[in-house]
């Protein structure tokens, strides 16, 4: 029962840290706004400068909320994948969902050059990009589900995801060969990811998708614990494996698909955060891991967002670069430190 006490202390710290990072993220930016004014704007009061209020309510607050949704969603989907595939290196990107989104967006942006010009302008609006990446990841989801129905082997599903990733980069490579500099720039910007520029209505849609994914994941906590002993033991303990697997794959897809659609492909969060959570709590119990991954996902994504717009810097660095710069060494460190990589 010492564990219980330790866990509740850790969770309190994580909860406070999430709140702190959230406020910090809103307080920092290229325009310096006094903390008192930030607080007044957030609580519905009027800031002494209307531009400050505007920046906070319409730019920084949506961005911070997006960061939390993206971080939590990707981290939880990574946790689900790692247990389902019994593979510590699994993550939403490994399943090929991000690749599906990338491919669809690449076809829209880079392939537009092959179409008549009036169609081009219709195609390459920001809404079509969201639509394309959603369709792309959903298409891969359906493909993965099809494979999952036919092949009982979970390794095979992982390999299909990897193959789809290679296929995507090849097609993207071919498309870049035929596209203009302007198109290339647009595609590159999207693929670097962005937490800003989301309207409140987009955030609402994202929140509904992430919320649904998180609910399905929470409902899978007990089956996920059974799966720690492998598929056959889980079945012998009364688990309806086919149904549980479909729910978990669906939850991951809706989380990763919606997030990639709105924020671009964001690497390493889904892979690294569950490991940080497992390292802190030293457990495999998903009732604990779910919440620790949840908090860490939000905290680390907010941290990455703060790092991408360090005070004094006029431009915002691409978020995907920041997550990779932070995430890749973390994964290597974990590998080195823990020989029994779980």
């Amino acid at each position, binding site marked *: 029962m010492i564990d219980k006490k330790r866990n509740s202390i850790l969770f309190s710290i994580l909860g406070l840290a999430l709140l702190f990072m959230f406020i910090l993220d809103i307080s920092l930016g290229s325009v310096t706004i006094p903390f008192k004014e930030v607080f007044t704007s957030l609580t519905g009061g009027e800031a002494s400068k209307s531009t400050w209020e505007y920046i906070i309510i319409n730019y920084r607050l949506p961005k911070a909320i997006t960061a939390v949704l993206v971080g939590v969603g990707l981290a939880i989907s990574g946790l689900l994948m790692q247990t389902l595939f019994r593979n510590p290196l699994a993550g939403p990107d490994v399943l090929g969902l991000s690749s599906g989104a990338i491919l669809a967006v690449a076809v829209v942006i880079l392939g537009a050059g092959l179409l008549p010009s009036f169609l081009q302008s219709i195609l390459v609006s920001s809404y079509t990009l969201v639509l394309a990446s959603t369709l792309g990841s959903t298409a891969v989801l359906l493909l993965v589900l099809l494979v999952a129905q036919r092949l009982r082997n979970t390794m095979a599903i992982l390999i299909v995801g990897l193959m789809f990733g290679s296929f995507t980069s090849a097609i993207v490579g071919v498309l870049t060969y035929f596209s203009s500099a302007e198109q290339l720039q647009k595609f590159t910007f999207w693929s670097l990811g962005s937490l800003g520029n989301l309207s409140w209505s987009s955030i609402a849609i994202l929140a509904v998708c992430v919320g649904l994914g998180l609910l399905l994941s929470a*409902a899978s906590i007990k089956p996920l*614990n059974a799966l*720690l*002993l492998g598929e056959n033991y889980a079945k*012998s303990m*009364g688990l309806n494996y086919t149904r549980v697997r479909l729910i978990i794959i669906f939850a991951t897809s809706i989380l990763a698909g919606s997030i990639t659609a709105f924020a671009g492909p964001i690497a390493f969060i889904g892979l690294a955060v569950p490991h940080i959570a497992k390292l802190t709590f030293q457990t*495999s119990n998903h009732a604990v891991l779910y919440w620790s991954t949840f908090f860490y996902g939000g905290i680390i994504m907010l941290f990455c967002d703060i790092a991408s717009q360090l005070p004094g810097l006029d431009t915002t660095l691409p978020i995907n670069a920041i997550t990779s710069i932070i995430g890749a060494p973390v994964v290597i460190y974990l590998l080195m430190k823990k020989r029994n990589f*779980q």
Partner: protein
Amino acid sequence: MTTILKTSNLSIGYTSKKATVLIAKQLNLNLVAGKLVALIGANGIGKSTLLRTITGIQHPLEGTVFLNDKNIANYKPLDLAQQLSLVLTEKLPPSNLSVFELVALGRQPYTNWIGTLTQTDIDKVQQALELTQIEHLTQKKHYEISDGQLQKVLIARALAQDTPLIILDEPTTHLDLLHKVSLFKLLKKLTQETNKCILFSTHDIDLAIQLSDEMIIMTPEMVVQDEPQHLISKGSFNTLFKDENITFDTEKGKFIIR
């Protein structure tokens, strides 16, 4: 004597697109409460297929498996999990599970949607830990203990699942003689103290003859179930291996190599 599981004219084997492979037919086996039953047979004879069929994982070619007088195919997964628990040979996937958590997973068929352990659940887990004498290991991670200890932990998990029938697939593989004997004795003790029926497959025929209540012998020609002494006097063990270098000595009750 309560019959827990029985098979009626059971035929086991595989059906593929090309052909049907029949492994054994007309099986009429009977598993009774409080008995330790050993399943023996040469490699590749179909022991696993038999176990898979009577645990409901695989469909029989013909005939029926009855668990408590009800066709096993008609059980819902959760109901089956409350009647039948398994100890498998497969390696556990990597995880941070402690021994206590692993044994407590056996309570899954009884816990609520999120898996909260009630006092009853904790008592059952505690009981299973005591019966298998692994209380001193509870806080260890499952990868920190020896093969023999892990086997006991997996048996404790099956005990915690609280089923009248436990089926183990080759539980003594990878263990040395000392641990084999202690595991056999543990299984024997469990059947006597808990009145469960335990069926296990094994290649340790000598030990099985000495410690099990009944044995099921699988050969290409037939499958017989009886008490070890009767099987010896019937000469059933000589049919086990088709090799003239190995014969069964009925007086000593063991195999002899020429």
